């Protein structure tokens, strides 16, 4: 542990704790008028707890703005010494989309003349036999790509035991010793050959490096929701990630994809046990990536994130319902980490990372309890005080509100200003376009925040009660969510909004100014979800780097997919000349 990292972490924790305590003090000044009741003390405690994680989430930006590592590597690439297997775990995915990405990545490596250092393995956990048969067909088409024989493999498990972590573990148990490194991708991941080579050579150079995570950019968004997410991920996330990396040191993150692992380290450290008890807290570990990063750190391996490696991509959800479905899975996985907070020999930072992941979801119900307690406090103003408080003023709440808005918005404004100075905004269409997009993103995310708050709170309740997600099926071939589907998924949010607003109007009109901005978007949730799922492909707003200057790998993949796609006249790969005996 170096002194600089210790100082950075200590300063971050002290600043965050100090800011949340000041927030609590400001809240006490407001609630202390006429003495403090029990409910006031509860509310103050909630302000301190939720405030801590709010500030903690925003803190990395100031470190990230000072970071200079978000640059495309200027160093020439070298041939990796170690042999890498590119793992593509899939589960009921569209094989044309997935395999065309593999074909593009393969061609990219061939262009560099380094394809012999990389193999590809499709690890199918597909349970739908119709899709599995399509995988077999389109894999046969993939095998007609250059240099595919003996370098590109496919295997399918008939039972997806242990889900994705079990899928990868199964591969390592069978074939892991054939390779030095494994580059783990998702079905929607895409990576330039140069990025793959740089990742492998980083592991060559640093023999203590167990895992190297890249920061993938979101590409391919077509809807309002998707493009806002894509813009935010491209414009804001790298700065957050760069700052977080300065705090993480060698106990960095693993997000489960677009990362390379040293197979000997991974196999020796990351065999995940089945937790005792039944789901949601027992059974297989769902959010395995955080745990694997913690286990690598526990074994003394470095886990780092590298901002300098570009050309790494993924796709994101195109509407809020798909986003909420994914969020529901992550919620269950993160809450399950509460079982691991006291796991033996973990590094302090790994435990803090688990706690942060848990609080990312628990904060939502805590905010709701704070809102409800505030309405109750205003509805019953004559509750007996348990403590007197000197220095109370009704100005405190405005100062606190200003501080909350500052914590939420200021980091984004700072990123915009820094981008204008450094020239980074040019990659997003210039400062005017990036600034307008950022303003629209702030408005959009503010409107969605109450909806997300209620969705996450419900997800926490569902997990704690062991309930199913309960989302209606959405059509994968259509991003647009109809009002009917949106209402079927979120009618209860509208009802909560109407009920809370009515209660506030009748019993606590003084709190209307706080409740109204939260409940109006909640009432309009179905309309917001349906509207934001509309097509928004070529709009001036939300230009991302990948749209402004598409990467060669993105263009290559699109060309291959268009060439393979049935709409071009090929109903099956057999029409493209793949003999049936290939599948014999």
């Amino acid at each position: 542990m170096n002194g600089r990292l210790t100082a950075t972490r200590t300063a971050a924790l002290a600043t965050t704790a100090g800011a949340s305590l000041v927030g609590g003090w400001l809240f006490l000044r407001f609630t202390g008028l006429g003495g403090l009741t029990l409910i006031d003390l509860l509310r103050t405690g909630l302000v301190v707890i939720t405030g801590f994680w709010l500030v903690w989430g925003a803190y990395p930006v100031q470190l990230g703005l000072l970071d200079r590592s978000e640059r495309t590597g200027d160093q020439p690439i070298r041939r990796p010494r170690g042999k890498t297997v590119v793992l593509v775990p899939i589960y009921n995915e569209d094989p044309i989309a997935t395999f065309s990405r593999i074909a593009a990545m393969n061609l990219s490596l061939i262009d560099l003349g380094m394809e012999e250092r990389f193999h590809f393995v499709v690890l199918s956990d597909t349970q739908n036999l119709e899709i599995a048969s399509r995988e077999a067909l389109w894999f046969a088409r993939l095998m007609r790509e250059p240099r595919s024989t003996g370098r590109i493999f496919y295997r399918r498990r008939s039972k997806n035991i242990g889900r994705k972590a079990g899928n990868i573990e199964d591969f390592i148990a069978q074939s892991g010793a054939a390779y030095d490194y494994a580059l783990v991708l998702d079905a929607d991941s895409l990576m330039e050959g140069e990025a793959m080579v740089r990742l492998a050579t980083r592991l060559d150079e640093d023999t203590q490096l167990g895992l190297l995570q890249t920061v993938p950019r979101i590409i391919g968004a077509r809807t309002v929701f998707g493009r806002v997410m894509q813009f935010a991920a491209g414009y804001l996330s790298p700065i957050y990630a760069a700052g977080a990396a300065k705090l993480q040191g060698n106990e960095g993150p693993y997000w489960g994809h677009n990362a390379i692992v040293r197979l000997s380290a991974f196999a020796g450290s990351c065999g995940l046990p089945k937790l005792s008890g039944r789901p949601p807290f027992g059974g297989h570990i769902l959010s395995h990536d955080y745990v694997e990063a913690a286990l690598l750190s526990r074994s003394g391996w470095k886990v780092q994130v590298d901002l300098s490696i570009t050309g790494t991509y993924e796709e994101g959800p195109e509407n809020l319902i798909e986003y909420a479905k994914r969020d529901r899975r992550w919620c269950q996985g993160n809450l399950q980490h509460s079982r691991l907070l006291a796991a033996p020999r973990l590094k302090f930072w790994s435990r803090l990372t688990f706690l942060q992941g848990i609080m990312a979801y628990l904060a939502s119900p805590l905010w709701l309890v704070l809102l409800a307690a505030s309405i109750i406090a205003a509805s019953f103003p004559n509750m007996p005080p348990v403590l007197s408080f000197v220095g109370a003023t009704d100005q405190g709440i405005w100062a606190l509100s200003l501080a909350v808005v500052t914590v939420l918005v200021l980091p984004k404004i700072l990123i915009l200003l820094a981008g204008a100075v450094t020239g980074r905004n040019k990659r997003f269409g210039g400062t005017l376009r990036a600034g307008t997009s950022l303003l629209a993103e702030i408005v959009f995310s503010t409107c969605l925040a109450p909806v997300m708050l209620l969705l996450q709170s419900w997800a926490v309740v569902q997990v704690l009660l062991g309930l199913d997600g309960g989302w209606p099926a959405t059509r994968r071939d259509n991003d647009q969510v109809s009002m009917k589907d949106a209402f079927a998924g979120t009618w209860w949010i509208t009802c909560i909004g109407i009920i809370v607003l009515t209660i506030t109007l009748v019993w606590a009109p003084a709190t209307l100014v706080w409740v109204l901005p939260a409940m109006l978007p909640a009432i309009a949730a179905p309309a917001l979800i349906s509207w934001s799922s509309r097509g928004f492909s070529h709009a001036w707003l939300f230009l991302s780097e990948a749209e402004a200057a598409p990467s060669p790998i993105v263009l290559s993949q699109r060309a291959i997919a268009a060439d393979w796609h049935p709409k071009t006249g090929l109903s099956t790969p057999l029409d493209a000349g793949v003999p049936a005996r290939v599948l014999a």
Partner: protein
Amino acid sequence: MGLSVEGTNVKHESDLTSLYPLPNAPLAMPKQVLERRPLLAVVIDALRSLAWF
């Protein structure tokens, strides 16, 4: 099995699990210990993990 891929030899689920075999090079992945410890061990470990201060 309900498969209906015309023009192929895919008839059974087993046809879909035995295509394109992987290299045979096993690598052991021992299960890690993540839970079930006495409270005292948890407290001592928590104190040790604060060593970064």
